[in-house]
């Protein structure tokens, strides 16, 4: 236990210690400054990260959930086995490889960096995670519930939606939130797809900034103020990840209270 | 592998067989006492009382087995029959008691024509023996003989009564004592048939039609 806590604690302590001093309104809402200046913020990076998360939710998450549902409920055949295998392989891909792939497909081909390319890369990383956690959650729903619903004369698709998925929903949501927490910090695929920027989002075919990129960029600057900004960005990123994790705890705790489905 | 209930059933069976033997002896003794003119009332009263208590015990044990083990099918039929049969055996004792009572009340009956009573008595003793054997061995065919044997005893009794009814001069003592004893013997014979009727019931659930 101690071995696990010590690295975690030391990271948190370092980040908080170094990053807290940068925390102010200007930091959260301002654009990055010019080297040598002592004003500047990481607002575009925050905006970028949130935008990417949003796009990934639209692109990657739904397909992952649907794939997970399919595999759990209808995937007990050769086709399902193949999908599961491919899914596992995909989850092992190094994120930089995913980044290169999407970069070649979307960035090089269209000669522009874009948020969409970034979101697509992140979706490819998210997809296998969400598929697997969704499938696992649905598999934990006991067969007796499906039996009970079918015996009432409820159709198969309705049973799957209103009984199976609804019973598994906290597990599914957990999986989604954890995968988002994971991709918030992905750096490699973003380098090749969104490039990074000092400005807010302006168009779908322009590069944007994101927190991991900002940290990466700022940490190597000669200017001490900018390096300090990196710590601040790191702190913000950790806050986002921790918030998502705490959110997961709250979501799963709700399972044991009298939560109801509105049919 | 023996069941829990088997211990109780074995005990029940043994109690019923003990009663069978005792009641058979009691009736034989009573009839022989009459024929030989001996007064064995005390002995017979004692046995009759013992039979009555045994019947209570059988009844209690049967009810306990039913409450505890909820028996069904042949087990249930056997237990029910044990209750009925033990009642029959206790009646044997009772009628033996009554027969020896007659001797006590009427005193010396050596002058009476005891032919009918001897015949009926022998038949009754035989019927008891047959009914016990059929019950013990679950012999349905043997049990089926009892009906005819019962008819014999019935006829002896009815003939005696009819004859006495038309007698112009009769010895009151002989007629009354004879009628009483033959009546008891007829009842003993009836109960012996009831014992026999439990045999097909235990074996195959068949019930005899009540007359």
């Amino acid at each position, binding site marked *: 236990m101690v071995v696990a806590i010590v690295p975690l604690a030391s990271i948190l302590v370092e980040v908080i210690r170094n990053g807290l001093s940068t925390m102010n309104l200007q930091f959260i809402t301002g654009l990055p400054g010019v080297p040598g200046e002592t004003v500047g913020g990481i607002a575009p990076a925050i905006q970028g990260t949130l935008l990417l998360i949003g796009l990934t939710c639209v692109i990657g998450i739904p397909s992952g959930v649907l794939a997970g549902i399919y595999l759990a409920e209808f995937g*007990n055949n050769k086709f399902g086995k193949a999908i599961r295998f491919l899914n596992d392989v995909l989850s092992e891909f190094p994120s930089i490889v995913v980044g290169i792939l999407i970069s070649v497909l979307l960035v090089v081909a269209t000669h522009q960096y874009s948020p969409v390319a970034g979101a697509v890369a992140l979706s490819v990383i998210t997809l296998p995670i969400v598929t697997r956690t969704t499938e696992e959650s649905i598999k934990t729903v*006991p067969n*007796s*519930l499906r*039996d*009970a*619903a*079918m*015996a*009432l*004369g*409820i*159709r198969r698709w*309705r*049973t799957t939606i*209103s*009984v199976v998925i*609804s*019973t598994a*929903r906290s597990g599914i949501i957990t999986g989604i939130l954890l995968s988002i927490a994971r991709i918030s910090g992905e750096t490699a695929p973003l380098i090749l797809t969104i490039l990074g920027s000092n400005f807010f989002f302006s168009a779908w075919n322009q590069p944007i900034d994101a927190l991991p990129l900002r940290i990466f960029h700022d940490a190597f600057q000669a200017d001490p103020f900018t390096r300090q900004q990196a710590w601040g960005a790191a702190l913000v990123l950790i806050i986002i990840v921790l918030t998502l994790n705490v959110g997961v705890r709250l979501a799963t705790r709700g399972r044991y*209270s*009298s*939560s*109801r*489905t509105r*049919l | 592998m023996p*069941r829990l*209930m088997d211990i109780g059933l074995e005990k029940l069976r043994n109690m019923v067989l003990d009663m069978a033997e005792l009641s058979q002896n009691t009736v034989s003794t009573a009839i022989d006492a009459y024929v030989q003119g001996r007064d064995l009332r005390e002995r017979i009263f004692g046995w009759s009382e013992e039979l009555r208590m045994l019947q209570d015990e059988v009844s209690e044990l049967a009810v306990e087995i039913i409450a505890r083990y*909820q*028996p*069904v*099918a*042949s*087990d*249930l*039929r056997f237990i029910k029959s044990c209750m009925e049969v033990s009642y029959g055996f206790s009646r044997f004792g009772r009628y033996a008691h009554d027969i020896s009572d007659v001797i006590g009340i009427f005193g010396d009956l050596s002058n009476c024509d005891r032919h009918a009573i001897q015949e009926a008595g022998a038949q009754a003793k035989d019927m008891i023996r047959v009914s016990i054997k059929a019950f013990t061995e679950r012999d349905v065919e043997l049990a089926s003989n009892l009906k005819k044997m019962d008819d014999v005893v019935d006829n002896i009794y009815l003939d005696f009564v009819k004859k006495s009814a038309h007698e112009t001069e009769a010895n009151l003592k002989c007629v009354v004592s004879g009628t009483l004893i033959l009546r008891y013997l007829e009842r003993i014979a009836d109960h012996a048939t009831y014992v026999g009727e439990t045999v097909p019931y235990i074996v*195959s*659930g068949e019930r005899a039609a009540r007359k």
Partner: protein
Amino acid sequence: MTSQVQLEELKLESKPLTPANQPLEKYKVRTENLNAWFGNNHVLKDISIGFLTNDVTAIIGPSGCGKSTLIRCLNRMHELVPGARTKGSVLLDDSDIYGRGVDPVSVRRRVGMVFQKPNPFPTMSVYDNVAAGLKLNGVRNHVVLDKAVQRSLEQAFLWDEVRTDLDKSGSSLSGGQQQRLCIARALAVEPEIILMDEPCSALDPIATAKIEELIASLKEQYTVGIVTHNMQQAARVSDFTAFLYLGQLIEYGETTNLFENPKEQLTERYLTGKFG
């Protein structure tokens, strides 16, 4: 296992319908030469049996004899298991539920089922659990639903205990209450037959007694079939009893007669506990 050998020695075939020589119309549901398989495992062999309308029929037999499979064929749940199949007819009011073009879902609305372990939907309230069969089939009218929920809970002897807590989660009830909730849920869709697969095995004796009383009251309006491994329960609640062994119907008759004087040796041996 000697009983297997003896079965062959006795050359038993499944017996046809025997109870009381009733005319066929009196049977709410009956099977004709029903066979069922799990893959290559032949679990029901030529079963011809019927449940008389508004009576309680019990199905008894040792573990693995096919009793659960039999009732699951009556509401077309058996075929949901991968590799399972059936052959033969099941006639509900004289029309074959396995006939061409028959929608299994419609069969399941007419033939309700309650399972061994109470299985209320965990994310739904008591109210929603009972209403599930109606709501999830498109009934939206609140008045209709309210009435149905109350009626079903009353019929399941549960209304008084939950009327003030209809919004509580279904899983917050005790085991016995949960099972009655499942019964109410099955009753809400107004089936014609209620099938119960060992409904009391997971319950304590008091909860069991309540459910047995409930079964006795249900038969006024419904036809009830109950699978049980508890012979005494079959003796207590049923009007007719069927004894299954190794997938074959060995004996079937009025409960009193079957328990007092079974016709088949095998039945006699099973009832008196001479084999498992």
